[in-house]
């Protein structure tokens, strides 16, 4: 029966027998000490590629450290070779490890920047991915490594972890980002359902080829959107403070709108009433990989309201301490004669920043949508002739016009101000999200590869894309797909 067995395993249909080799497993990594600030953090890696991770991160080209012995090493980013931290590395060859697989532990300094740097570096290695909740424990259990009484304790830990993730997810759901991921998941579910309907029912039922063309368009749009999102350098909120960036200006010029756009969630209340923001609203952000603490402030004006007066006072204080101030002005404030614009801007700057230094501020002219196109060109020309002013971005928080240019400018400025390459560190959740989003994009490519030759394989692409998205937004089961099918089509045969 040798041939039979050999052939069957070659075909992967030897489905009744458990494959003993662990080499088919992914290599996973995660922060296994608690989250948040702590003195020492432990990052654990488990799986066949652990040894590669150890070699490339700890620069161990020849010999590995003795098993289960701590070794102090400089930890480098495997691609950029920049120094991430100095820490202890431990090598646990399987089966004598927690999971029974080859494992590595990095004991590093506990700051979020260091931790994130290490996690990001691990994520950039081939065959490594962030662990799902409880994955280390499950692997340990499958390897017979866990005393069953231990499972209970581990369960509590995992529970805490997922609870934190759930809360985090809830927070994100309130924001644009959660909405965005959910929308993608819905779109992809719809597309997949329509392809599945075409596969399962088009013979014998009235499901036209047009269904597939709609899917083609939807999937390609989705792919572009996710790709853009991934290449988008604004990585959302961060967990620690960084460059102090303050938004300041008169009342009602759109400071809070700009603030909300930058942090991708409605963090500050926006209303047409002047003086809506009365206190300093702060949020840590990651802009272009740099940690930023962004503050929204009360509009600067003389007022009799004592609460608002305190707000204006605080705004002035915050501006004083800022690394960078975004001075926002509104197109409605511009003079009729555009040649007078530089003068107005100068006076405005003096009002907002009495002790101004140019490298400390950017001018933002908001409500571009209310300005005739021709005026924009004139203003830009006029400003070129007045080099004394800081750079001006003309944008609209309403329709996002001009936002891209502004972000590029802001990023450059922060980069110059910051100058710390180590700070590039998206949050833990985001590392996970990026991995899954990237997998989703890769999977969608398979749809087009097989669209015309093999619809089953094309659908497989959509399926695995949806699975990847589902790891962020929640699983989509076969029943839900069928629900869409029976909602959208009359299936008769």
């Amino acid at each position, binding site marked *: 029966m040798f041939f039979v067995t050999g*052939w069957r395993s070659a075909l992967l249909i030897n489905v009744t027998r458990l494959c003993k080799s662990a080499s088919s497993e992914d290599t996973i990594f995660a922060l296994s000490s608690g989250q948040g600030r702590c003195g020492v953090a432990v990052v654990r890696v488990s799986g066949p590629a652990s040894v590669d991770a150890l070699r490339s991160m700890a620069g161990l080209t020849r010999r590995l450290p003795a098993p289960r012995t701590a070794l102090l090493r400089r930890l480098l980013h495997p691609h950029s070779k920049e120094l991430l931290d100095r820490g202890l590395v431990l090598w646990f060859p399987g089966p004598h490890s927690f999971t029974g697989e080859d494992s590595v532990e990095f004991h590093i300094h506990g700051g979020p920047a260091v931790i994130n740097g290490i996690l990001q570096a691990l994520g950039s290695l081939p065959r490594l991915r962030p662990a799902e909740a409880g994955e280390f424990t499950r692997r340990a259990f499958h390897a017979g490594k866990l005393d069953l009484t231990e499972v209970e304790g581990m369960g509590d830990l995992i529970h805490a972890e997922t609870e934190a993730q759930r809360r985090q997810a809830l927070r994100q759901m309130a924001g644009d980002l959660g909405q965005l991921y959910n929308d993608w998941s819905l779109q992809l579910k719809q597309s997949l359902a329509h392809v599945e309907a075409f596969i*399962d029912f088009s013979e014998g039922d009235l499901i036209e080829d047009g269904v597939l063309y709609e899917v083609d368009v939807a999937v390609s749009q989705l792919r572009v959107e996710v790709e853009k999102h991934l290449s988008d350098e604004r990585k959302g909120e961060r967990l620690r403070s960084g460059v102090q960036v303050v938004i300041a200006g008169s009342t009602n010029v759109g400071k809070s709108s700009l603030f909300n756009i930058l942090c991708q969630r409605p963090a500050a209340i926006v209303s047409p009433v002047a003086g809506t923001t009365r206190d300093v609203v702060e949020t840590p952000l990651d802009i272009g990989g740099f940690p930023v603490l962004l503050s929204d402030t009360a509009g600067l004006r003389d007022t009799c309201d004592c609460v608002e007066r305190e707000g204006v006072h605080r705004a002035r204080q915050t501006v004083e301490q800022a690394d960078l101030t975004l001075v926002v002005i509104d197109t409605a404030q511009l003079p009729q004669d555009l040649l007078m614009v530089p003068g107005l801007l100068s006076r405005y700057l003096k009002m907002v920043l009495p002790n101004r230094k140019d490298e400390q501020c950017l001018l933002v002219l908001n409500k571009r949508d209310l300005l005739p196109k021709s005026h924009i060109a004139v203003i830009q020309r006029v400003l070129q002739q007045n080099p004394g002013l800081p750079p001006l971005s003309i944008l609209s928080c309403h329709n996002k016009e001009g936002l891209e240019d502004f972000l590029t400018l802001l990023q450059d400025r922060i980069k110059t101000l910051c100058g710390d390459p180590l700070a590039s560190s998206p949050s833990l959740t985001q590392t996970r999200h990026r991995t899954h989003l990237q997998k989703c994009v890769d999977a969608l490519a398979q749809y087009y590869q097989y669209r015309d030759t093999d619809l089953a394989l094309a659908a497989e692409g959509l399926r695995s894309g949806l699975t990847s998205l589902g790891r962020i937004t929640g699983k989509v089961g076969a029943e839900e797909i069928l629900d869409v099918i029976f909602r959208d089509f009359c299936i008769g045969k």
Partner: protein
Amino acid sequence: MSLARRLLVRQHFLSDCFVRAASNAARLKYDVVVVGGGHAGTEAAAAAARTGAETLLITQKIQTIGALSCNPSLGGVGKGQLVREVDALDGLMGRAGDRAGIHFSILNRSKGPAVWGPRAQIDRGCYREFIQSELLNMPRLTVIEGSVEDLLLSAADPEQPGKHKVTGVRMANGGGEILSGSIILTTGTFLSGSLFMGQTTSPGGRMGDPPSCAGLSHCLREVLGLKVGRLRTGTPPRLVKDTVDFSLTELHLPDSKPVPFSFVNKHTQCKPEEQLPCHLTYTTPGVDKVVRESLNVNSHIHQDTRGPRYCPSIESRVLRFPGRQHQVWLEPEGLTSDLVYPQGLSMTMPPELQLRLLREIPALRRVEIRMAGYGVQYDFVCPTQLFPWLQMKNVQGLFLAGQINGTTGYEEAAAQGLWAGVNAGRIALSLPPMSLSRTESYIGVLIDDLVGRGVTEPYRMFTSRAEFRTALRPDNADLRLTPRGFEEVGCVSWQRYQEAVRVSRGLGEALSALQSITLSSFQWREKLGHFSISETKSTLISGKEVLQYKDVSFDLLASAFPDILSPYLEFSERLKIEAVYQPHCEKQRQEMERMRKEESLALPQDIDYFSLPVSLSDEVREILDRARPSTLGAATRLPGITPAAIIHLLRFVTKVGVTTGEAAYMQVRGPKPDCWRGASVHERDREKATVVQS
């Protein structure tokens, strides 16, 4: 012979087998008793007999064994996979289809081999005849006519899970008792079944057959306390062929080269040129009008009972999607039949309105109805009360299969019947039960969905239900199931096993041969002529990789390398499919292994989720208690179960071998010394086969 009416068989069945069957009928004790002669019952009886159990099939009428009660067709997308898998496990359905098919076509030809749907229109009479002759001539199987009135019960074996234990059946009309420790109920729509036409309702499960199972219904519900639900289905009127104007329809021809369902058949019985066509027509606005007018005299449509969202009656199609044209397929009922089956026009309105509705369709303007359409409502037993080997969790020795479990379709019924038969046979022979994984078969998906999630509407197989669809293809069902069916399950004959081994070996050798041919892209172009191989590829390319290209067939490669490849030309199509799908299956392997691992972790059935001393939320406890998953894998698929809950459950699982849940069963039951009586049966078959060959 007072226990049941003696069977009457036609002259040509009077072989020595019949004589033996007759003598067996006198026995009052069988290893396995199957109640019901539909698709589930026939496969169950045949499978139980194949495992080596002395089996009795009890049916109301021998004449209706193997009847296609609704559509005269078999297979299709998703269902075709089930037929292939039933065949790979040596079931009857595939071979019956090849014998009785009169119009073969592979659906989804243009959409990729994983979702191809082998399908055939079937000659009803011919199908019945084949199934009957197979069953009546099968060793170890006895068939009798009769009605079962009640189950015989005794105190449960305390060593096994379950509160009750079956010990046999009591026949109706004073027919006496038949003893058996393994009983399979396949009563279809007959459990508290009622028929609907217009405003009239009558008890029954199929028009023309007497109602039955009243006693069984009572026993299942009141005595055994099983949870039942109610479902509905329907069937269209049958039309007189001569009164249909086919010139007003679209002609649909069968495949010119019919592909058989069965792996052991090279050809179908029907010759390509003898096949009959199908015809397609459409509903008109007039049809909508009649449906609307009929609503006040159509009680079936007003019932709350859940009907399927697919294959709905024309009434619900019109109501749900008003103003649309709906397809109506006019299908032949047989080679010589004078009837036509209008697929898509299932209806329950009064017969005179049915006629009016039909005549609103131009091709049916002068149509006559032979038998009016009607609706059926029936009880099903909530399948979450079953183990994955289709035995009731609560009742030792009682198995259920087919529509009684809430499914619809011949193929779904046959698949369950086969698996219930295998396990009833195994338990009777003191072998541990077995389950099929979602990772190896559609049958596994079907049963796992049923026992894991239950049903809210009649369950039908779709390819989208199988997460590993690219690996579970119709072309490789034999490789997936036949070796296991012989080596482990004991339901596959030696001959079929040998054929699967031969095919498997051939494919393996051919793929190795392809792998061994390595050329540069330039050389490949020289050999094969122009095809779109990337210019830039500098490394050597194997024949297997080249075969993945769209325009390259195995025949083309074989013509370039006749010495190496021509011995494998018979596998041409399968090799092409393997070459294309292998990389994708490789990608899925990890996920499959994870699922298999989790399926190998059994959760004890007597676990009290409400008092478990672990931190589980009340919501999770409730979900687990309601579903009572058999394995950790089943638990992870329940909606609302968190990763944390799974980790907590790990503490309670029993780690076992791969063939899953049965281990939990064995754990309480204890291993039996009597190992593998099934093997001896196959030894016998093997000897017989050798004799035939020599």
